């Protein structure tokens, strides 16, 4: 049976490193999924995830339990990522297909790389990847964060409001705008 976050946090506060590692393994991939969509640069994404866990583990005593641990974690990560984007530090526009993992069976939905892939499909997928990249980059950091938290992590509107420290109405407004923009950008390819 999986150990509750509260128990791992209690053990972590007492110095149990294994408990911290379990928390890390539980949330690392999920956090990375959101952050990599926010900053787009893989090195920045890794650095932000690392910094997030370090900050969280160093301030466990400051976590009062008013929210869930993972929304607290997301909040730290999203704030860091948004700060980074606003400063424009080390931001590089990276095409999706330059770093997309490719499966053995064929090309990923957005990348190329399989020798057996139809050239037409490869070109179409490259274009689609470019469009998604453009669509995401056209959003402000706040809009990007909201749509990623909803679409990738499946957080509820209330949880997103907690992470973003904004009202429910603001979450709804940003989500609607972001979805509409994404859909409009990809319309001709859908």
């Amino acid at each position, binding site marked *: 049976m999986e150990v509750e976050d509260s128990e791992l946090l209690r053990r*972590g*506060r*007492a*110095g149990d*490193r294994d408990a*911290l*590692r379990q928390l*890390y*393994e539980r949330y*690392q*991939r999920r956090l*990375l*999924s959101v952050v*990599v*969509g926010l900053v*787009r640069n*893989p090195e920045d*994404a*890794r650095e932000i*995830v*690392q910094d997030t*866990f*370090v900050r969280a*583990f*160093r301030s*466990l*005593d400051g976590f009062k339990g008013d929210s869930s641990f993972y929304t607290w974690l997301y909040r730290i990560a999203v704030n860091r990522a948004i700060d980074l984007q606003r400063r424009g530090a080390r931001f590089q526009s990276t095409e*999706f297909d330059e*770093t*997309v*993992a490719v499966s053995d069976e064929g090309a*990923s*939905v*957005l*990348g190329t790389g399989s020798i057996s892939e139809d050239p037409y499909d490869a070109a179409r997928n490259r274009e*689609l*990847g470019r469009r*998604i990249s453009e669509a*995401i980059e056209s959003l402000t950091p706040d809009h990007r964060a909201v*749509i*990623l938290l*909803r*679409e*990738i992590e499946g957080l*509820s*509107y209330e949880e997103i409001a907690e992470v973003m420290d904004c009202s429910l109405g603001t979450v*709804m407004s940003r*989500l*609607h705008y972001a*979805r509409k923009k*994404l*859909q409009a950008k*990809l*319309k001709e390819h*859908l």
Partner: protein
Amino acid sequence: MNCNDFEANIDRYLDGVLEPEPRRRAVEHAGGCRTCDTLVTSYQQASALLATAVAEKAAAVDVSGLWEAIDAAVGDIAVPTFEPIRRPVRQTWRGRLRAWLGDWSPLTLGAAAAAAIAVAIFFGGAGTEDAPQRIARTKSKAVRIEALEVPSGYTVSTWSRPRTRTHIIAINQAPAYTLASATTAR
């Protein structure tokens, strides 16, 4: 429900959080309106593409050694614990001193008396630049600290400002504020 109403509620519809009656009307409208039905489909496809793109991007990030880097950066996060001892505080000066020092075993009563003197001398030096990190501050009427359990290697320093009835207890690892130092610091 018309198309404007449908689009206004499309996010709740897509996320499955519409109330039953509005949801019924939305489903009914989408079933009979090609434009809105196509809109829903395109929103869902865009979401799916986004999710796939992000997942692939995340999978491509090298996370080898990430835990080790975090572990090293976090460092030693051992924190002193404060365990209240459930026994009445005596009103004598020994009892008040014991309330501050509690079951800190290395101290005898004689040492505790010396500590009281040291603490008394140190009153005037409260809030100096070299003060260790403060981690607890109480008003005397608000909290009664009956005992402190201090891990080995930590030292305890206390300040009190009678005028404001403020007592400060600091616990830190640096040896700078041992009781011997406190007797000479002004």
